[in-house]
């Protein structure tokens, strides 16, 4: 198990696929589509290997593959995965074929470039979730910006250019800040141990010994750059634009995986590297998270555009994840991890459904619809299902995540007040309000718009194939979450133990 190369194979599967597509003819669109889909399915198959061979009791990184890269700075190609990584890698490889299949018809120009970009994006995201070298992490983090920029900019809606530039600049600001933070971290740590290294596992031991004054700034720098990605209120303004303008595939990837990179970064970097500062800032960040939960929900409520509504609901849901992480209890962090997956599934499904209906009518306004339950019953059922999952109905996945987070936050000694939970819980209620209200306006009632009769057709076989796997997992997590919680149990408790070790004098 020690020096397995499975993760490297996984990482290079989509890259090699993209290179092969590069040499295909632009005109062979069907072949390219099928090939891209097969590659992404193959990547999913490869990613099952670490899942089935995972050692649940071992909190350390597994399947480590390390090759020295730059000697003078001790940078290496160093990948590995713990339970959290495996979960998110699975999410990535699961979502990618679904998005490729979902955009079978929706993307009708430059299909070759699109498929390549999607595969490269997948590689970048997988890389982020498995990098164990801060430098490598940064490379993957940046590398996946460029495909996303093109996906929004070329295949997006009317305002796509504005949205793509805004997305690029915003996230770039965050990632450059992270670059400075990474350099500062490694330089500061090298002064402690007298050796420059970018090895994350070594930094875990060294970083908490950095002077607290510096640590505080480092924590904030990392936090800021991840918070832009999450996005945490008030840094969320790029998200609605990017989401609304992106093509369906882009939105799904963005919501499903990209945003998770921010919360993943918080767990992977901020908590173990700067435990003291984490505890110190946890209440402030939790307050920001709660503001995000409520603000996102309130803004979602007044949206007239379905896609925008779902986009703002993301802000609200990710607030839960951040709250869970910074409540710093076992339950809450476990809940946050599972909620990352949940959000990927349910919001992904919502975006897919909005995309499906948009493909037919080219309208996203809620007011345009109404009473479509009779016209497209299957669609109505699917939308109901996705909405309920997003709301957190018991028995579906959303409930598990939100429940664990709220439970954990309630017990949290770091937050030490139940007011957090009270406010956060309102978010759940608001979520029910805005989603069901939208559902009611779109699906129920009588058909007010005559055009809908001719435009709308129900879900076809391809769309059902796209949606069903997601719904299976939504139910699976809702009923038997242990399958997934077990994966992250060991690493989560290890991280919390690590935080506790450095801060036991106060607050614990």
């Amino acid at each position: 198990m020690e020096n397995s190369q499975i993760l490297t194979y996984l990482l290079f599967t989509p890259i090699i696929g993209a290179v092969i597509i590069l040499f295909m003819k632009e005109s062979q669109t069907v072949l390219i589509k099928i090939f891209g889909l097969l590659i992404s399915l193959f990547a999913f198959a490869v990613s099952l290997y670490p899942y089935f061979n995972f050692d649940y009791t071992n909190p350390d990184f597994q399947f480590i593959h390390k090759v020295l890269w730059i000697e003078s700075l001790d940078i290496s190609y160093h990948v590995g995965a713990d339970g959290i990584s495996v979960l998110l890698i699975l999410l990535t490889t699961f979502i990618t074929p679904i998005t490729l299949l979902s955009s079978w018809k929706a993307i009708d120009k430059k299909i070759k470039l699109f498929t390549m970009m999607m595969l490269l994006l997948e590689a970048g995201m997988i890389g982020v979730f498995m990098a164990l070298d801060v430098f490598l992490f940064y490379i993957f983090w940046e590398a996946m910006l460029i495909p996303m920029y093109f996906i929004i900019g070329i295949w997006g809606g009317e305002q796509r250019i504005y949205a793509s530039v805004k997305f690029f600049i915003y996230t770039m600001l965050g990632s450059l800040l992270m670059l400075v933070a990474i350099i500062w971290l490694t330089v500061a740590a090298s002064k402690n141990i007298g050796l420059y290294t970018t090895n994350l596992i070594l930094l875990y031991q060294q970083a908490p010994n950095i002077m607290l004054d510096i640590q505080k700034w480092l924590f904030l720098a990392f936090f800021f750059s991840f918070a832009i990605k999450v996005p945490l209120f008030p840094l969320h303004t790029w998200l609605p634009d990017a989401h609304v303008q992106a093509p369906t595939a882009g939105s799904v990837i963005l919501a499903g995986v990209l945003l998770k990179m921010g919360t993943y970064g918080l767990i992977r970097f901020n908590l173990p590297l700067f435990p003291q500062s984490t505890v110190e800032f946890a209440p402030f960040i939790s307050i920001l998270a709660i503001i995000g939960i409520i603000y996102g929900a309130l803004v979602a409520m007044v949206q007239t555009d379905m896609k925008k509504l779902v986009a703002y609901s993301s802000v609200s849901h990710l607030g839960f994840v951040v709250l869970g992480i910074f409540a710093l209890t076992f339950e809450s962090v476990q809940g946050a991890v599972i909620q990352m997956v949940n959000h990927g599934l349910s919001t992904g499904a919502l975006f897919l459904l909005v995309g499906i209906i948009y493909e037919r009518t080219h309208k996203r306004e809620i007011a345009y619809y109404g009473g479509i339950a009779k016209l497209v019953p299957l669609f109505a059922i699917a939308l109901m299902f996705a909405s309920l999952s997003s709301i957190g109905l018991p028995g579906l996945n959303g409930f598990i995540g939100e429940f664990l987070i709220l439970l954990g936050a309630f017990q949290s000694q770091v937050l030490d007040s139940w007011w957090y939970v009270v406010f956060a819980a309102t978010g759940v209620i608001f979520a029910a309000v805005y989603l069901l209200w939208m559902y009611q306006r779109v699906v129920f009632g009588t058909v007010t718009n005559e055009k809908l009769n001719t435009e709308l057709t129900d879900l076809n076989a391809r769309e059902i194939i796209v949606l069903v796997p997601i719904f299976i997992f939504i139910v699976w997590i809702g009923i038997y979450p242990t399958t997934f919680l077990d994966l992250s149990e060991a690493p989560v408790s290890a991280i919390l133990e690590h935080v506790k070790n450095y801060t036991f004098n106060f607050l614990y």
Partner: protein
Amino acid sequence: MINEILNSITFIYPELAVSIFLLIIVLVDLVFHKDKKYIPYISLAGLVITGILVLNQIGITHFAFVPQLSAVKKYGMMTIDPFGSYFKLLVVVTSILIIFFTIASEEVIDLKERLGEFHALIYGMILGMLVMISASDLILIYLSLELLSLSSYVLAGFLKLRERSSEASLKYVIYGSVSSGLMLFGISIIYGLTGSTNLYVINSLIQGPQINLFTLSFSSILMFVGIGYKISAAPFHFWTPDVYEGAPISITAYLSVASKAAGFALLIRFIQTGFTSFISEDGYWTLIAVFDWQALLIAISILTMTLGNFSALWQDNLKRMLAYSSIAHAGYILLGIAVLSNQGLIAVLIYFFVYMLMNIGAFYVVMLISNKTGSENIDDYDGLGAKAPFLGVALAIFLISLTGLPPTAGFIAKLYLFIALIDANMIVVAIIALLNTVVSLYYYVRVLKHMYLTKSEREQENITPSIGSLVYLLVLLIPILFFGIYFTPIVEFARSCVSLLGI
């Protein structure tokens, strides 16, 4: 006496080679004035020979032309050291690239008849730069600066029929004369204070107590004006956009890389030799406490990069945008010097090497496109990604590298710069540089946007570059990508060239 001179000559072979080839070019121009097509090859051959001679010198540390009549017989007028050799190599390589650049460019229509002058003037610039990089005597510094300036004035106005070009040349002359006059004034004051023009002697003399700090600071600032003009640091950068826009594009690329490199080499040598008292073990320079170079350099560099980046935001002419971007890059490089450490110096060396590749590359693509479309306007780049896929991708990589994103060499350059800054605890400065990078991102991405996202309104034929251009671009692209992924060689090379001949 004669022995010293003969001995010294062995250390200036590159400069000698350049002078000899300059004369050969002039003679060939005169003798075969009907058929001048061989001149570029002669000048290429000369540069290759010069390059080999410079390569031979790497690793040598020696003084040349030590005055025998003066009191102090230790320090020469020229200093041969690995640092200087690195920059000389950079200048020679840039010159070779520029010669090819000129061959491909169709901007100078009557170039065929004026090849002789053109190459002679380029050689004049090269000679000035080579001497400038090694000079450790104020008189020599001034003279080489003038040699460089004089040649570049004429080259900047080489397109005499274009109004902008003449205007550029005239502006260049006026700004240049003022700043070189101020520099000369500064030199005279330093001489008045110390009675010497040799930087090493000056270094030991200004450590004495009787030196008037106010006067020394004033003269240092005046010296800096002269150098700052060459490296187009704000507030001495006003000539840059006009000259870069008006000059033939090959000369613009040349000015933005080579003459800047020489200016930076001079600045580094001036500070390191003239003002450093010792270098600590971890590579930090301790300056003689007479003048706060660090504060001045930080202020100037922040001003330079901010002005450069913000002015570049509004440019629609790509040449002009690249001019402003090169001002901004000068700001980043200045930061590397402001750290006042060997770490910073390594960053500067790496940065220059990368900057040479990406800047010349960007200008080259702009030139190829303007050859075809006759325009450098950003609107004419609409949909270029589809019409000229290779050129589009090449320009995109150059611009991404200029921004400093992985996996390009531009990222490595910025990485080392940031490491140096943060190692010196200059976090705030690093953050300002970072914010500047975000600003620069906007205008670089704007070009990408026009190339790939905006559709062209009019139909245009596809642009396919010639085989030669393809090879040229690949020669620039491959190292940018290769060093972006595996940068140990370039870092090690820079590290081996970091040592200046100290006291």
